[in-house]
């Protein structure tokens, strides 16, 4: 099963005691704030979960694997995620049977 926003909204409604529409708005806003922050070039650190980092990639030479032609890939900005060691250990310690 995949966890989606709808589950987070229901959980917020059940646990925080906000109305359905307010829960939906608040959950959406959490991700909107993180998107805005990352778009401004600032990292987002959620202790115990992980860190979303904005990385500047410089221009590099690449190759189109289909045609073999050389090409220049322009500089770009990407988001990377580094898992918190706390979460990593929790995932690692969990029973192998889930796989």
């Amino acid at each position, binding site marked *: 099963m995949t966890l989606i926003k709808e589950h987070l909204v229901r959980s917020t409604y059940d646990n925080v005691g906000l109305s359905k529409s307010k829960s939906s*708005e608040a959950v959406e806003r959490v991700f909107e704030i993180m998107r805005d922050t990352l778009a401004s070039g600032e990292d987002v650190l959620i202790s115990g979960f992980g860190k979303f980092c904005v990385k500047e990639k410089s221009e590099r030479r690449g190759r189109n694997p289909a045609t073999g032609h050389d090409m220049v890939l322009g500089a770009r900005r990407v988001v990377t995620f580094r898992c918190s060691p706390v979460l990593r250990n929790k995932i690692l310690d969990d029973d192998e049977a889930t796989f």
Partner: protein
Amino acid sequence: MNKSELIETLAKSENLALKKAEEVVNTVFGDMEKALIRGERVEIRGFGSFKVKKYDGYQGRNPKTGDIINVASKKLPFFKVGKELKDRVDI
């Protein structure tokens, strides 16, 4: 930005008490964490998705000494950036 700044920003923009905003943020990340521990995927449209990847153990060598060592299998969470976030960050 750290978690408490995220909570403050959420409280302001949604006109919530700080305590409520904190509960919302803790619920969101707590639920995502629990799903990943269960080995489930997390998919947040417009932001990204998380998936736990499993790596088999293998026999490796210590490059310095040449000794054979067993590298245990491991599970690591991976984040794939969603389209909207990717487009907004890249300028």
